[in-house]
């Protein structure tokens, strides 16, 4: 132990970086070992020439760490972050996105090769796909970087202009090539390239306009958002709405792609109701204009009443739009128009995008109404004490609120335009896990208890539903519809949570993790082993669990026609649970959870009944999981114990942690992103590898951003409040992860 070989520190660092790149090389790619030749995967990963790319990345990281002072000096300059973002988006448009659907893998490389080898295509497209994409990226990125480093204002402006030009050419070249090739194309490659180029141009503009030494991105964004709260949302609404009204497809029977004007021509003189035909002719434009003008005025003048009026107007406009959309599809079907397939079918994106736009504008008005009188604090105060100024805004970030509202708009009106695959993925992969993550957030994020058997309650909920709907071999005393099974399943899970939690919650946190894990496995093994022929064993339920039905005598609605119906049912459930938990967070109980999480002894000393409080968190989490189980069971119909393996429990934990422990929006965002990503990347990353990537993400997250994607508001407030306006203290505190007292 006395012999210490002391290498210079950079040697170890270099080795670590190179080792990391070898591991990365093994992680990336489709190679897999086989039974006959175990060395195959290793050779493929490590001895191929492609290893040099990875080693290069490793060396770059090494250089970045070694010269981090220099790097940081330049990386802090205004414009660097948009520059990196733009380059990343452009690379994504090359490597990830499709440019042309009918063609094989449809990536830019393939499509570009096809275009350049066809002399008859317009020269712009051939040039773009031939070399302009790469050259444009290299030139603009290099020029912007040079402009940032040497502070060359003219160069920044010039590269911004070139970026915009290249982006425009990308869209033009793509549409030329597609119109030449024909076929239906819904790819986003060109649009992604445009966005990337616009972000690059933004980097140039920022570099040219900025007069300060270091970038203050967050402050800048907050300032823009706070300038007129709600303005970005209204602007977004205007852009989307104009696109929807002018360019998008509204009705598309048999691939006709009719815009709003075409639709009006099509339905001229048909049996369309008065409102709908008026809508197609002028009412649509009118309501949009009215809502936008109202919202914009409300936002600009910060008028409370006007904001509410705008929001109300948006709701009315959305309802009218929906009625029209329904009328179009119903009338076309009734008239036997060729290609029309029934109510709510054959609708293009136009109507739904207009709904999103109206929602966005209305939300802008709403924000303006809620945030009315905060217009730019006195300049002296604002400039003098930025931290103090920020302190007042803690917890009321307009940016986050705007993003959330826009997300709600997307959740409401985007799914109808999605493909069947994505609708399926939205309900089965994303939606259910969002619900689970919200529930687990109570247990992990608020009460600080690590529950690794969360899926067990989901299984209990599912099997309870299956039992009471008569889908198991053992028949229940009374048959219930799945909707009526919800309270029963919640009760069962509550009881199970209390029974499991009662004796174990007194234990240390890491023991609790193991006990819950064991419980999860016990439940699964019981389901597999099928005692008393109750669960029907590994084959899963005996008969399909029926779909939920609402039957009020005069109105009867049965789910199951399409995934969309389940999506909206799920949205209602999510909204209810979200509202409940949102109120709970600030309640007496929520504060007791926070106290227990931060310091159990202190909480007990101040009179919190810690065991009861923890038990409540555990049981509430369990019942949410049970609710998700009911939904899952009735949505899929058939399920088996394989749906409740431990991996799923840990995935939910990963979602909560990734999103930000203790933050409701964070849990939703974490689950949505992490479930969406594998589906999105399903062509790039083999599906079996997604657990591997999620594991890597968890480690990296814990090292670099332990508070998660959207850190919890309460914690942020605590930290910023403590920090006062001493930036160094603030830095230190930000390095400290959100403290959980497990």
């Amino acid at each position, binding site marked *: 132990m006395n012999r210490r070989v002391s290498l210079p520190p950079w040697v170890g660092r270099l080795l670590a970086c190179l080792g990391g790149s070898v591991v990365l090389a093994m992680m990336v790619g489709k190679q897999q070992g086989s039974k006959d030749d175990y060395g195959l995967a290793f050779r493929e990963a490590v001895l191929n020439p492609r290893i040099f790319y990875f080693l290069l990345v490793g060396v770059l990281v090494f250089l970045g760490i070694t010269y981090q002072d220099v790097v940081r000096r330049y990386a802090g300059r205004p414009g660097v972050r948009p520059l990196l973002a733009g380059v990343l988006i452009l690379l994504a448009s090359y490597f990830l996105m499709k440019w042309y659907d009918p063609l094989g893998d449809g990536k830019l490389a393939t499509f570009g090769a096809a275009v350049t080898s066809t002399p008859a295509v317009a020269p712009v497209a051939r040039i773009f796909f031939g070399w302009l994409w790469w050259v444009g990226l290299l030139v603009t990125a290099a020029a912007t970087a040079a402009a940032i480093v040497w502070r060359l204002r003219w160069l920044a402006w010039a590269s911004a202009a070139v970026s915009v030009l290249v982006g425009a050419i990308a869209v033009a070249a793509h549409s030329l090539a597609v119109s030449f090739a024909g076929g239906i194309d819904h790819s986003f490659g060109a649009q992604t390239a445009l966005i990337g180029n616009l972000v690059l141009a933004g980097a140039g503009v920022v570099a040219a306009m900025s007069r300060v030494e270091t970038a203050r991105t967050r402050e800048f964004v907050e300032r823009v958002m706070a300038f007129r709260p709600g303005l970005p949302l209204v602007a977004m609404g205007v852009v989307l709405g104009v696109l929807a009204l002018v360019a998008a497809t509204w009705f598309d029977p048999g691939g006709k792609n009719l815009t709003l004007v075409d639709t009006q021509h099509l339905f001229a003189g048909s049996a369309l109701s008065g409102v709908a035909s008026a809508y197609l002719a002028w009412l649509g434009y009118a309501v949009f204009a009215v809502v936008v003008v109202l919202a914009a005025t409300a936002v600009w003048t910060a008028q409370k009443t006007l904001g509410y009026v705008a929001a109300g107007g948006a709701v009315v406009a959305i309802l009218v739009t929906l009625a029209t959309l329904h009328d179009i599809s119903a009338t076309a079907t009734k008239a036997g128009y060729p290609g029309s397939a029934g109510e709510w079918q054959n609708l293009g994106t136009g109507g739904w995008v207009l709904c999103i736009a109206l929602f966005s504008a209305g939300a802008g008005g709403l924000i303006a109404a809620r945030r009315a009188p905060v217009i730019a604090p006195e300049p002296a105060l604002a400039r003098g004490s930025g931290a103090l100024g920020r302190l007042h805004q803690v917890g009321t970030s307009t940016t986050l609120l705007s993003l959330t509202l826009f997300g709600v708009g997307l959740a409401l009106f985007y799914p109808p335009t999605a493909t069947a695959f994505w609708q399926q993925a939205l309900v089965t992969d994303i939606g259910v896990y969002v619900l689970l993550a919200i529930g687990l957030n109570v247990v992990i994020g608020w009460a600080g208890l690590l529950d690794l058997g969360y899926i067990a309650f989901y299984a209990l909920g599912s099997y309870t539903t299956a039992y009471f709907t008569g889908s198991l071999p053992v028949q229940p005393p009374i048959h219930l519809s799945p909707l009526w099974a919800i309270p029963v399943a919640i009760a069962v899970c509550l009881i199970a949570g209390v029974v499991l939690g009662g004796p174990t919650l007194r234990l240390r946190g890491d023991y609790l993790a193991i006990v819950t894990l064991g419980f999860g496995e016990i439940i699964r*093994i019981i389901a597999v082993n099928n005692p008393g022929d109750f669960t029907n064993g590994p084959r899963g339920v005996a008969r399909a669990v029926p779909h939920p039905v609402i039957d009020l005598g005069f109105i009867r609605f049965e789910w199951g026609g399409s995934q969309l119906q389940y999506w909206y049912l799920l949205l209602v459930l999510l909204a209810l649970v979200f509202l409940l938990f949102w109120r709970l967070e600030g309640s007496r109980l929520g504060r007791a959870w926070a106290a227990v999480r931060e310091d159990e002894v202190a909480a007990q000393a101040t009179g919190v009944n810690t065991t009861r409080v923890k038990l409540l968190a555990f049981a509430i989490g369990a019942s949410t999981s049970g609710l998700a189980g009911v939904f899952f069971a009735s949505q899929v119909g058939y399920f088996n114990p394989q749906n409740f393996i431990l991996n799923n429990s840990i995935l939910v934990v990963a979602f909560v942690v990734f999103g930000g422990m203790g933050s409701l929006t964070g849990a939703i965002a974490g689950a949505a992103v992490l479930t969406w990503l594998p589906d999105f990347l399903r062509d790039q990353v083999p599906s079996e590898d997604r*657990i591997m990537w999620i*594991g890597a993400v*968890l480690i990296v997250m*814990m090292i670099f951003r332990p508070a998660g994607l959207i850190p919890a508001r309460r914690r942020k407030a605590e930290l910023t409040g403590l920090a006062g306006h001493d930036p160094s203290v603030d830095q230190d505190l930000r390095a400290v*992860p959100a403290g959980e*007292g497990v």
Partner: protein
Amino acid sequence: MSDFLNYLILGITRGSMYALIALGYTLVYGVLQLINFAHSEVFMSGAFGSYLVVHAIVGNGQGVSGLGAVFVIIAGLLSGAITGAAVAFLLERVAYRPLRRRGAPKLAFLISAIGASFFLAQLFGKMFNRLGQNQFPTYFDANKVLFTIAGAPVRLLQVIIIVAALLLMFFLDRLVSGTKLGRSIRATAEDAPTAALMGVDIDRTISRTFIIGGALAGAAGFLFGTAFVFTNTMGFIPGIKAFAAAVLGGIGNIRGAMIGGLLLGIAENLIPTAPWVSTAWIGIQWTDVVAFVILILILVFRPTGILGERLGRAA
């Protein structure tokens, strides 16, 4: 009676492998008060590492003489131990040390450990065969009956496993109670800040603790792979049971882990597979449930385990 002995021997065989893995949990818990969730993947990596070496030596297992087989087994144990040690060392460096430097809360460690566990299991799955029931080449007659106790046969492989496990545990016991490294491990477990003041290099001690625990688990991986089959997800169940064994003996307590491992192995073999109690007994498909129920019962009724939970004092 011979059935009973049969299952007892099976239980001891399994139990000694659990004990080897449990030692890793207990050692790390002793110095860090942290459940090393990824330890089961260290165990798994040992099986794959030793397979590569054994396969390279014996090919498909034809024509290995008796003495050669002994040599191969030792090589397998060593290579498993080395792989396990290397993986455990890297694990500590990548997934735990950065968090420790920043004084992260325990939940962060646990989540990082879970991430590492997933990452390792799936990376090995990607590199090697993901689903296959991989088996070591048969280079000796593992099922040869050496002798019988009251009608219960004792097979060669069982003897190898038990002897190897006992030897390794003996060495570990000597290491922890007799050497300078062992003393610094115990000192760190007892009171890390004071140990640091007394000149113990905490970082180095923790790193070496991981290496020792990893080596034991890697060797257990070789034994387990030789006895059964090995896959990239093989670590989970034995890992959980070894953890249960560590808790049963008193986590943080080295001798406790050995005893706990043996007891758990015996219990889970005797309780569910016991026609010697009655014919209508529950059956082997409940083995895992028995282990988990034992774990939960211990945690609820005697969370400090059989021998109590101090590494510093008990070893």
